[in-house]
């Protein structure tokens, strides 16, 4: 026996230890693999020995090799052997090897259960320590189940603080693997929150925080305990965890937010630890603290300090957090635009990219030009292709955001060489065509600048658009002959094929125009010269390798030759040539084709020629987008066509529309929650070669536009002021549209050319204007308006007309209180019911209010009510207090410390004729039933210093909890198939309106979106703020409309259907 030991240790002396191995590997750089394979052979020999020291040494080396990427799974059993050594030295190595090499599928793990149990209960705390560490790495569901009890014993009876701490932490892993253990263990875990040892306490906080992040609901009851910890603890690690936990809890219990805001702001003010500050700021941003604008401002201030810091890390995080604030409080971020723009100069690319992201969200009508101008400067400077590409993409995104919603001056946008879709713009908005043509002609003339150093396909794509615009709208060209000449330069042949094709085609169009102008002259030689020019230049294109160019060029060449012959005989041909390209292009609505009736006896589905094969028929698709308008293939109405085919066609059509400039895309104003990724890849401009100067002589520079635009705005502002005075008078007479001239300064900027973004289905102009307004406000506020109503104080809508007539007289009387009912909808009920209240103060001057209830997307239990107060009398109103009698279900959120019956002070006073908006947050528990809240507004009239009171009712319909959410038909089908939804249906009789009006009405009044429409049947979708899905199937036949509806909440569905019914019963 003794001899064996001696022999073992002698063996050991000759063995390589870890150090030798490392050294060896470093010395065999060239043949590392070979060296290691011999080492592994040695290790295998060592593992066969009985000596545990040799084995441990071998396992240690294996651990190192495992890190280098070698497979050591074959030694798993040997690792277990070393783990079970009684000596700490070897045990430690064994556990280390196990924690590095074992994973859930390692089968020998099940052999370790007893060993681990023994080590956990070992009197030696170090044995326990390594066992816990190892377990944390390779715990499997089986191990968790078998060892849960042992760990629990350690937690509650462990005498050693350190062991207790570890075992608390390990519990989390056990819970994850074996969730059944959570319930019995939880009370003990909770006890540990108040453990005298701060380490154990913080471990317990850690575990509960992580658990709560996964399922916050169950941990709400611990909130008071954590609140106490938060206000008493000074350990930043613990504080960060607690704050994170509260971040997860607040969405469930909004009152918590109110309570937290104070300690959080205190921490933000006082802490010197950046990590804690950052955590607080993040929680405030993410939490539902919409009522306290002050805290957001504080956050933005602190973030500004972070961004201004010289530390790149803080700068980056500051920008990151800013972008989160931007989503909820864009205004407060926008004021720091200067700072963000500065960050574009930072040497760190990731910071620049963050800043770019922020800028994208900050763009408004006012600052678009300025921002794009700055960005263009950066494009010139930018090094590195990825960043430059990103810059360009962002500029394009910024410009095209929401269908060019922010572009007030299209002239400016066309003059930007990278602006996307110039054809799209110029077709859609004919007002600027003349201008665009002039711009593009200059561009073509200077094409050599762009093409000069263009090995890659630089910005020549813009030429494609330019050529087409010049050809199509050639009548606006100042000097068509010059442009024609420019288009036929030999240099053009170096452009990519598809651009050449457009050049050739449009040269022909231009040729027609030129002929027309020249034939008017008596001298026929000029016309012949022009033909000669064509004949001279075209053969170059006839030889083109590109088939399309070749074909077009040869066709046109033949045509021109023929024309020349006629010209020589003095025949006037211009009219006929022009006729080839006649017809003005006008914007076409996406669904216009549907309205064209299919002529009798025409079967659109019948093949004209049987297609040889599927693939070839694809190729027959007309490639030339810019050829004359050809009859578009109407969508087949065959019902037999299977779903897949339909979906495929739909997709193809969408794609086509997206690429086709003739279509105005559907307006984004229909409250899309997210936008489809803009088809960046379809935007013609992909890259700009840096050596190409982006300034093309003759093009007005963008700064000129900025100046022009500013002047224009100033003028407008001056005019507006004049108008406003008038308006104010008008307004006093109570005529509608208060919301249009609200405090929203964004609305004050009128576009250079009025461009209405109109969806085809909108039945009434009035609705359209409202829609646009919604979409603007969306950008600033993630909250989705779910209802827009008018606050009817006293007189029902029946009196509306009469009252309007009376208005003038009443104004003169002035003493009489006027209440005005805006009736934007004919529906939404509730109006009649409100009649009975407020009869007391007939003779008092009163503010008129308009209100708007918005569901809060981020919080299923919050509703924001925006009330516009307008003072319609001629005395000054002050000390307004808004109060609502809370119901069990809905409560007005009041500041901390105020009683449940206290009113909220309206934070402004109202001079005569002025209106202002205040927001009130309500918490709503259940949204399945509509309800009305009674309230009063008290105020003091300054002249008479009398206290006045006005009663009102707030009507929360179920509709107002719905949020328009787009839904794709496949997701919709899945939803219906899931079987979780309960059905209900309703029939409407005597509805006398076109089907699309009907749909539009449901969409508009009840916040649905159309998923799919086939003939007289449509599916619609909406979602409530608490995530209920509401699906409708609307069918019409004659005057009867049947609506089959499904929803996961039957009561809600019933009420929504009732409301829909009411909408239609009133029209």
């Amino acid at each position: 026996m003794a001899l064996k030991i001696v022999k073992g240790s002698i063996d050991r002396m000759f063995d390589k230890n870890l150090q030798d191995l490392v050294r060896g590997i470093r010395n065999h750089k060239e043949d590392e693999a070979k060296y290691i394979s011999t080492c592994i052979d040695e290790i295998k020999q060592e593992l066969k020995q009985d000596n545990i020291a040799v084995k441990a040494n071998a396992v240690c080396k294996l651990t190192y090799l495992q890190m280098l990427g070698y497979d050591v799974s074959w030694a798993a059993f040997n690792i277990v052997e070393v783990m079970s050594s009684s000596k700490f030295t070897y045990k430690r190595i064994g556990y280390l090897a196990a924690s590095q090499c074992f994973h859930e599928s390692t089968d020998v793990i099940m052999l370790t259960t007893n060993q681990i149990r023994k080590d956990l209960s070992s009197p030696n705390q170090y044995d326990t320590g390594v066992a816990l560490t190892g377990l944390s790495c390779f715990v499997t569901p089986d191990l968790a189940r078998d060892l849960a009890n042992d760990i629990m014993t350690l937690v509650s009876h462990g005498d050693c603080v350190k062991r207790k701490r570890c075992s608390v932490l390990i519990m989390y892993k056990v819970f994850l693997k074996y969730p059944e253990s959570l319930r019995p263990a939880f009370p003990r875990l909770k006890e540990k929150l108040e453990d005298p040892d701060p380490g154990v306490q913080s471990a317990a906080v850690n575990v509960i925080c992580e658990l709560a992040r996964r399922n916050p609901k169950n941990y709400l009851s611990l909130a008071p305990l954590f609140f106490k910890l938060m206000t008493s603890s000074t350990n930043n690690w613990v504080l960060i965890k607690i704050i994170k936990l509260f971040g997860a809890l607040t969405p469930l219990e909004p009152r918590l937010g109110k309570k937290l805001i104070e300690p959080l702001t205190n921490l933000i003010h006082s802490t010197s630890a950046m990590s804690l500050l950052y955590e607080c700021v993040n929680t405030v941003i993410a939490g539902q603290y919409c009522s306290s604008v002050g805290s957001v401002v504080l956050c933005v201030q602190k973030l500004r300090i972070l961004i201004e810091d010289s530390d790149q890390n803080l700068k980056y995080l500051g920008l990151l957090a800013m972008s989160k604030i931007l989503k909820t409080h864009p205004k407060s971020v926008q004021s720091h635009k200067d700072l963000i723009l500065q960050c574009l100069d930072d040497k760190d690319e990731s910071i620049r990219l963050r800043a770019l992201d922020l800028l994208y969200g900050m763009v408004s009508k006012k600052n678009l030009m300025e921002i794009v101008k700055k960005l263009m400067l950066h494009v010139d400077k930018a090094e590195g292709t990825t960043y430059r590409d990103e810059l360009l993409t962002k500029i394009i995104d910024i410009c095209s955001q929401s269908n060019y919603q922010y572009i007030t001056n299209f002239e400016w946008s066309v003059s930007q060489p990278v602006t996307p879709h110039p054809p799209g713009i110029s077709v859609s908005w004919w007002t600027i065509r003349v201008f665009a043509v002039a711009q593009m002609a200059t561009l073509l003339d200077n094409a050599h600048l762009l093409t000069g150093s263009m090995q890659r396909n630089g910005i020549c794509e813009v030429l494609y658009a330019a050529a087409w615009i010049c050809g199509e709208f050639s009548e606006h060209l100042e000097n068509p002959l010059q442009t024609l000449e420019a288009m036929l330069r030999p240099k053009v042949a170096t452009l990519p094929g598809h651009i050449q094709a457009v050049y050739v085609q449009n040269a022909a169009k231009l040729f027609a125009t030129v002929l027309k102008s020249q034939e008017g002259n008596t001298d026929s030689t000029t016309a012949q010269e022009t033909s000669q020019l064509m004949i001279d230049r075209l053969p170059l294109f006839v030889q083109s390798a590109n088939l399309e160019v070749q074909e077009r060029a040869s066709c046109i060449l033949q045509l021109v030759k023929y024309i020349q012959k006629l010209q020589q005989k003095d025949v006037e041909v211009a009219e006929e040539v022009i006729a080839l390209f006649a017809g003005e292009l006008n914007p076409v609505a996406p669904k216009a084709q549907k309205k064209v009736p299919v002529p009798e006896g025409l079967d659109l589905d019948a093949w004209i020629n049987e297609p040889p094969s599927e693939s070839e028929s694809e190729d027959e698709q007309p490639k030339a987008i810019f050829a004359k308008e050809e009859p578009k293939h109407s969508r087949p109405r065959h019902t037999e066509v299977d779903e897949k085919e339909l979906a495929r066609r739909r997709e193809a059509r969408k794609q086509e529309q997206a690429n086709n400039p003739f279509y105005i895309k559907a307006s984004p104003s229909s409250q899309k929650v997210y936008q489809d990724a803009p088809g960046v890849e379809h935007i013609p401009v992909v890259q700009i070669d840096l050596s190409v100067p982006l300034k093309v002589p003759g093009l007005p520079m963008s700064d000129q536009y900025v100046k022009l635009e500013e002047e224009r705005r100033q003028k407008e502002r001056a005019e507006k002021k004049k108008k406003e005075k008038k308006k104010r008078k008008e307004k006093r007479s109570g005529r509608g549209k208060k919301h249009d001239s609200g405090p929203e300064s964004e609305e004050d900027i009128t576009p250079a050319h009025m461009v209405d973004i109109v969806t085809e289905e909108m039945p009434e102009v009035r609705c359209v204007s409202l829609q646009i307004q919604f979409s603007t406000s969306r950008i600033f506020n993630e909250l989705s308006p779910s209802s827009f109503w008018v606050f009817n104080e006293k007189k029902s809508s029946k009196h509306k007309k009469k009252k309007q007539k009376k208005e003038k007289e009443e104004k003169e009387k002035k003493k009489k209180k006027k209440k005005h009912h805006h009736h934007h909808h004919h529906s939404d009920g509730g109006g009649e019911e409100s009649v009975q209240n407020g009869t007391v103060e007939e003779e008092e001057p009163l503010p008129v209010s308009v209100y708007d209830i918005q569901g809060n997307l981020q919080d299923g239990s919050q509703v924001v009510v925006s009330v516009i107060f307008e003072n319609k009398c001629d005395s000054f109103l002050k000390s307004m207090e808004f109060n609502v009698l809370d119901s069990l279900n809905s409560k007005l959120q009041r500041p901390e410390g105020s009683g449940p019956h206290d009113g909220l002070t309206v934070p402004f006073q109202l001079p005569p004729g002025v209106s202002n908006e205040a927001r009130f947050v309500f918490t709503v528990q259940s949204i399945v039933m509509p309800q009305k809240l009674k309230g009063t507004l008290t105020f003091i009239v300054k002249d008479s210093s009398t206290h006045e009171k006005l009663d009102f009712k707030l009507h929360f319909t179920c509709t107002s909890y719905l949020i328009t959410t787009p839904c794709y038909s496949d997701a919709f089908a899945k939803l219906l198939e899931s079987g979780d939804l309960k059905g209900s249906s309703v029939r409407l009789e005597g509805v006398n309106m076109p089907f699309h009006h009907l749909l539009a009405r449901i969409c508009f009044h009840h916040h649905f979106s159309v998923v799919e429409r086939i003939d007289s049947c449509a599916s619609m979708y909406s979602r409530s703020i608490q995530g209920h899905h509401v699906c409708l199937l609307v069918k019409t036949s004659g005057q009867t409309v049947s609506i089959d509806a499904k929803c996961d909440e039957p009561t809600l569905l019933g009420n929504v259907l009732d409301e829909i019914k009411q909408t239609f019963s009133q029209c």
Partner: protein
Amino acid sequence: MSLTTHFPLCFLFSLFQMQFMLLFSRQGKLRLQKWYVPLSDKEKKKITRELVQTVLARKPKMCSFLEWRDLKIVYKRYASLYFCCAIEDQDNELITLEIIHRYVELLDKYFGSVCELDIIFNFEKAYFILDEFLLGGEAQETSKKNVLKAIEQADLLQEVRHRMKSK
């Protein structure tokens, strides 16, 4: 209740705050790896390769954070070694940076102005320190003194046994 409530859960289903920690040299050689999420060797290798490339490609003046897949990567370079941690989306980058710094300080104290070679030749010691400091990706002991004390005691235990054995 509704379909949507199930959905975010799968996002939340991940483990403790730190997913893994990697130490690698400027040449891209891995010096230490600690995984707090169960992954197969193949995945680990793939992630390591990708991350090492990404981090080494960054310029020295760039900030310490980057977004990678759905994780946030926090890294810092000390002399020739990169310390690199992966955390989840909601986690605090700055505290992770602090953890890295703590660990470096611990190594420094233990080895006495640590260098890359110390970690190469005593890689198991570096692991022991890390395990003493972090458990399952969570800081278990925030006091440097206590961590070092625990390591020293364990080492002592090891040596006592060694001596006893060699007698």
